[in-house]
């Protein structure tokens, strides 16, 4: 490498988002901002029953309505090919496949008209009759088809039944979590246009490379003839990780009409069209000795899944790696219901599992009289409990200790109901969190030019987490240039393929790919006989080269299989203080301390924003959010922001957020993803604090006031 490459301390600096100015000025184009010449507008036709078959469709009134260009339903639409499997598992049943209705709000057709208002009006004129069936809506419904071990994640080490039988102390708790909606602000949008044989789609997706593959298969066009664009995305929280039927229908309509078609979902449609965190029920049994040392952990989970769907979203995957315990068994089932398709929502599986496990540990602390923090330290997994390999990095201990100190845990009276403040009972609770390592292969193209600028290109996108900014920082540091001299081109599948923005896996994979590219670049520059201290700009200049471009690649998961360390994900601990107005049932969070080990932090400011977002979402999960289905029709009964409650500013106390830990030793850049870890320990910390305040253990989220009466 030439001596000038590498600049100190650019990575990690809390610089403002490089795209921030464009965003606040309204100059960053989100999918709904795209309007193409000749574009027409679509509206969806949605099922108004949850189960059954369509017996009759009459499109004639809609087709005759003003401005209408086409009405596509299952009986007149061109057939599509089923979507393929991808790294996130199989996608759903393709839309318009047949006359079957699997959930309320299912997209059963699309109307295209000259204006959006005309399309919406015409959609109401399509007459549909159904042979309705009784929907299966509840996890406990005996009619629900239940699959055992659907993800192959059931696991066992040691002898759990024997250990439970021999344990000094046991805990046995059942924990339920209501369905939750991701609720990103940006309405999901598709703008599809066919240009000759080439498809260009602006779509609200967190997984542009996967979407490209899926559309190429479904519409039978070569992958290189599909371009997915998503330079800016108005939030996803996982909602953009799957292929959704509105995207397919809009693309289909554009093909039929050979015109660009635009569809923007309405807010109520968002609640049933882009997935949600499935409702779940978990049973955790713990066995321990009198000092709180775990001897057995049995974790059984069941979660809802759509009919005909098979989303791979295990809950128990994280369990075996959480604590040192010789005997651990996990079991998993899923029940198929007539509910809108489930999806991934921030820390899917991990956050559910931690609510159950960390609540159960609190119960164990209560029974043994061991302090909850000490209990977690006593069961600390110093090495990866499954493989026995040392962790690539793990600062959960620091998370727990620093958190306890910042929170003032030492002064806590362990007795429940011990602290009052006016009408409130005050309680303090805590929880730890372990997140799984996750990575997919990532490719970038890195170019430098003789003016001293660098350009990084990759298909992956920035869902608001700061990908643009950290990409520029990492590149600037590795190349020894200023952040201002790095151009980041992302969210475009004409660029090299990248993993989805999800699973906290993009930042690490991307950083490693950039580093790989920078190394390659350094080699190429070295071959150009660089002089000591010479910049690459001058080197290129001397050789009359405009640009030098290289490709970088990372496959961390591949490398993990033959690594002698266990690659670690992020870790965290949360400490919560709540006030419970016992007479009125109202629970408010008074203080929240969150400490996170995310390895090397690429940007202290955007990382902190992720932790804040996770904490706020965790408060929502703990106290407010639950999707309700009408028990008769299966319709989402609270699909508006007036009815589905997310936290508002007043629900969120000042958040004390700290990052601890060292650069990870497995990822070459030292980073670990941290987009999700911030939510994982919040709900159990709050529920444990509610118990400490009141002596009441609420095992059912959200903890709304009626449950406290």
């Amino acid at each position, binding site marked *: 490498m030439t001596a000038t490459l590498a600049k100190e301390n650019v990575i990690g600096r809390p610089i403002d988002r490089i795209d921030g100015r464009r965003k606040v000025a309204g100059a960053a184009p989100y999918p709904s901002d795209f309007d193409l010449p000749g574009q027409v507008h679509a509206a969806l036709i949605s099922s*108004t029953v949850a189960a059954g078959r369509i017996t009759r469709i009459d499109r004639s009134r809609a087709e005759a*309505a*003003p401005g209408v260009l086409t009405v596509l339903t299952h009986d007149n639409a061109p057939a599509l090919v089923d979507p393929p499997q991808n790294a996130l598992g199989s996608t759903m049943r393709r839309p318009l496949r047949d006359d079957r209705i699997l959930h309320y709000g299912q997209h059963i057709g699309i109307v295209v008209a000259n204006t959006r*208002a*005309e399309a919406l*009006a015409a959609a109401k004129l399509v007459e549909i009759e159904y042979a309705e069936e009784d929907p299966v809506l509840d996890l406990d419904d005996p009619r629900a088809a239940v699959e055992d071990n659907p993800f192959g994640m059931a696991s066992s080490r040691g002898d759990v039944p024997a250990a439970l039988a021999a344990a000094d102390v046991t805990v046995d708790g059942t924990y339920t979590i209501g369905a939750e909606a991701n609720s990103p602000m940006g309405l999901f949008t598709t703008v599809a246009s066919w240009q000759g044989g080439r498809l260009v789609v602006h779509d609200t997706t967190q997984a542009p490379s996967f979407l490209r593959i899926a559309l190429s298969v479904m519409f039978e066009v070569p992958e290189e003839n599909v371009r997915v664009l998503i330079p800016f995305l108005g939030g996803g929280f996982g909602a953009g990780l799957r292929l959704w039927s509105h995207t397919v229908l809009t693309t289909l309509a554009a093909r039929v009409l050979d015109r660009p078609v635009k569809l923007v979902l309405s807010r*109520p449609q968002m609640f049933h069209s882009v997935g949600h965190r499935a409702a779940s029920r978990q049973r955790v049994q713990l066995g321990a000795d009198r000092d709180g040392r775990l001897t057995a952990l049995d974790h059984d989970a069941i979660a809802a899944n759509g009919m005909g769907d098979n989303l791979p979203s295990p809950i128990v995957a994280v369990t075996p790696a959480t604590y040192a315990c010789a005997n651990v068994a996990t079991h998993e089932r899923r029940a198929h219901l007539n509910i809108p398709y489930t999806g991934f929502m921030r820390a899917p599986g991990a956050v559910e599992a931690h609510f159950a496990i960390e609540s159960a540990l609190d119960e164990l602390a209560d029974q043994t009289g061991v302090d909850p923090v000490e209990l977690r330290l006593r069961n600390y997994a110093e090495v990866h409990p499954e493989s026995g390999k040392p962790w690539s990095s793990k600062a959960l201990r620091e998370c727990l200790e620093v958190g306890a100190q910042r929170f003032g845990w030492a002064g806590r009276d362990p007795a429940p109901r011990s602290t009052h403040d006016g*009408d409130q009972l005050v309680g303090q609770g805590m929880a730890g969190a372990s997140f799984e390592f996750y990575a997919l292969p990532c490719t970038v193209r890195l170019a430098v030019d003789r003016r001293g600028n660098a350009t990084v290109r990759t298909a992956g996108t920035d869902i608001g987490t700061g990908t643009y900014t950290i990409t520029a920082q990492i590149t600037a540091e590795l190349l020894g240039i200023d952040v201002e001299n790095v151009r980041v081109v992302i969210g475009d599948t004409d660029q090299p393929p990248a993993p989805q923005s999800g699973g906290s896996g993009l930042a690490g994979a991307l950083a490693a790919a950039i580093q790989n590219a920078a190394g390659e670049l350094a080699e190429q520059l070295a071959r150009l006989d660089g002089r000591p201290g010479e910049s690459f700009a001058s080197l290129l200049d001397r050789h009359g080269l405009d640009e030098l471009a290289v490709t970088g690649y990372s496959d961390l998961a591949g490398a993990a299989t033959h690594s002698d360390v266990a690659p670690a994900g992020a870790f965290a601990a949360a400490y919560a203080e709540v006030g419970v107005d016992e*007479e*009125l*049932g*109202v629970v*408010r969070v008074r203080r929240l301390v969150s400490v996170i080990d995310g390895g090397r932090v690429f940007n202290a400011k955007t990382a902190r924003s992720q932790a804040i977002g996770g904490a706020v979402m965790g408060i929502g999960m703990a*106290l*407010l959010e639950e999707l*309700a*289905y*009408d*028990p*008769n*029709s299966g*319709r989402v*009964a*609270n699909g*508006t922001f*007036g*009815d589905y*409650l997310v*936290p*508002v*500013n*007043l*629900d969120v106390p000042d958040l004390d957020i700290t990052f601890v830990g060292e650069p990870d030793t497995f990822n070459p850049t030292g980073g670990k993803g941290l987009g999700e870890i911030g939510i994982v320990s919040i709900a159990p910390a709050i529920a444990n604090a509610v118990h400490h305040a009141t002596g009441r253990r609420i095992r059912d989220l*959200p903890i*709304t*006031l*009626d449950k406290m*009466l």
Partner: protein
Amino acid sequence: MSDIGYVRAADQGSALALVAEDPDAVFLAGGTTELDLALKDQVVHPSRFVDIGRLPLRGVTRDGDRLRVAALTTMEELAADPTVRDRLPFVREALLLGASTQLRNMATIGGNLLQRTRCRYFRDPEVGACNKREPGSGCAAIKGVARMHAILGAGPTCIALHASDLCVPLVAMDAEVELLDADGTRTVPLTQFYRTPGDRPDVENVLRHGELVTHVQVPLLPAGARSGYLKVRDRTSYEFATTSAGAAITVEDGTITWARLGLGGVGTVPWRAWEAESVLVGAPANERTFRAAAEAAIRDPFTVPGTAFKVELAKRTIVRILRTVTS
């Protein structure tokens, strides 16, 4: 596509005429209720909006021991009024605990009285069974997800809540509504203005088509009385009341000599707790009295599984506000 007309009324007379002449025309004040229902949810289908927003019906005047509030005064303006602050504190509290600042700057007092229920089944045009929208079609909420629904004045035809916070202290204070149409003015006590659903859930009040609310009159608290408004909800702000109570009380030598109690979050109409008031007046200001008043207030509730918890919560809400205003 349904086209909706829009006219801005130049003066009161033309506003009245423009609505009276067309059975499907409606007044439009701040629009925070009406535009949602007509344009977003599309569950009401007016032929035309007659915008009264610029009529000179704005401001608060004091007339002896009464306040006269013009109908187009905004919620924020009324909350900021010095007389309201000093002599009707629980009206101010109820206003400021409602909606959000942005909405309160648009929403008018007349519109607040006439706001429509938040029942999601009413507001979703895909729901067929709603007696309030389509008399005789049934009530989907009763067997559905009903949490933000009424337990008092409710029945098998409709359990829709009147969700106003402001109306709770107003019914407690015996506010009166001044109405105007081509036939002249009339004044109706707010406690007689609303109708419980009975067999006509679609008829919510005694307002005739084309009748304009011009003013609301509110008697001031008597000297020595104390008041308070308590709103109980899961979300700290920007949510309607799960239960609420507005109380005004005078205590002399430990005995309650005057009492007013209104309830929110529980009634199909803003609820005046007359029976509770009779229990309170003449009784000692203590926990036993408060609980007895609460029991008297929530008699014969009509509950569904989702609202059953409100029976006890409403009672505790009453006890808490009585304790607060008498302490």
